[in-house]
């Protein structure tokens, strides 16, 4: 499963993942706590500059940027039609600031680095019986089985098409779910044998 991470090196790649997440959290809290147009404009301008400074790395984010442009346009047009252009502008500036920085973080941070940050953030939950180290095992299992189940889905769809001449659609949801639950039993057995828990 490919990540949205960009291998093209940028200055942001050298900033620790935890620092980037912290700055993003601060930025999100900041832009949503003020309706001041000047503050939001300055924030959006800074975020655009930071994002543009990533150079070639942003090419990988093209689909995400198109989504951002469409959402911004819809908000602007909607509020324009309702004669509330300033409200629309505030919404678009907030969206630009936070989403661009979110995309920048995604492009410049390996998912394993973010995983380590999440595990560290979840440490306080340990006394409640939560095991942060399980997160990496579960992410690994999830990615492995995403591919496995997608192949299984296509196999069921092909079989259905051969039988009926039509695509399976939602008719193969139930067999897929049953096969998945059966697989869960086998995986649980294996984990129990491997980890004795």
């Amino acid at each position, binding site marked *: 499963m490919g*990540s949205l991470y960009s291998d093209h090196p940028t200055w942001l790649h050298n900033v620790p993942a935890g620092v980037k997440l912290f700055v993003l959290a601060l930025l999100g809290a900041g832009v949503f706590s003020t309706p001041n147009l000047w503050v939001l404009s300055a924030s959006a301008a800074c975020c655009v500059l930071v994002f543009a400074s990533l150079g070639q790395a942003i090419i990988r984010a093209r689909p995400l940027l198109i989504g951002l442009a469409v959402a911004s346009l819809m908000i602007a047009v909607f509020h324009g039609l309702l004669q509330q252009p300033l409200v*629309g502008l505030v919404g678009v500036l907030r969206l630009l600031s936070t989403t661009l920085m979110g995309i920048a973080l995604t492009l410049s941070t390996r*998912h394993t680095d973010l995983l380590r940050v999440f595990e560290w953030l979840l440490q306080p939950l340990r006394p409640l019986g939560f095991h942060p180290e399980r997160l990496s095992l579960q992410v690994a299992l*999830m*990615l492995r089985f995403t591919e496995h189940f997608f192949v299984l889905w296509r196999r069921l769809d092909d079989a259905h098409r051969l039988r009926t001449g039509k695509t399976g659609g939602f008719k193969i949801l*139930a067999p897929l779910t049953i096969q998945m639950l059966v697989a869960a039993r086998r995986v*649980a057995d294996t984990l129990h044998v491997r980890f004795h828990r």
Partner: protein
Amino acid sequence: MRRATPIFSMNTSSLSIALVSLFAALIAVFGLIPKIDLPLGVPITLQTLGVMLAGCMLGPKRALQALLLFLAAVAMGLPLLSGGRGGVGVFFAPASGYLLGWPVGALVTGWIMHLLPHTTPRQTAIHAFIASAIGGLLVVHVFGVIGLVQIANLTWEQAIMGTLVFAPGDLIKCALCATVVHTVARGLPDWRFGG
């Protein structure tokens, strides 16, 4: 069916890890599957159905964990949402309220499913429909509306009108969820719906 003999002999810890990971994977697969066109050309994507199924099949705690795991993987930059979207940025988009509503929706679905009795496959399916409609539809849309009001600066009335457009499609997903639960109840009679 439910409350009968335990279905797994192994420790519940390894079972939880497996079920949580596999349901998170199922929701990811639902994002990879192209949208399904229903009669009259109504297209539906399946990830919300995954939220409903997780609640009905796993129960509240594991369903919540599966959805949190899925969203954590999305936040890490994996393109698991329909259309290949992913990364932290999606949590600031106008539709992010729906995303954040998924874990709560799965929790509520699982909790209702856990409370209701499951004597026959038909009864289980009917209760799955009710649980999905409350958790997977109502709760998720409440979060979606809050997101639209906060991020897209819509009024409550505008946001509610906007979200109602998707309600018929989601009701169809509740029916699909009930159908899948009915089939699973017949195919795996020892499965404990609702955890």
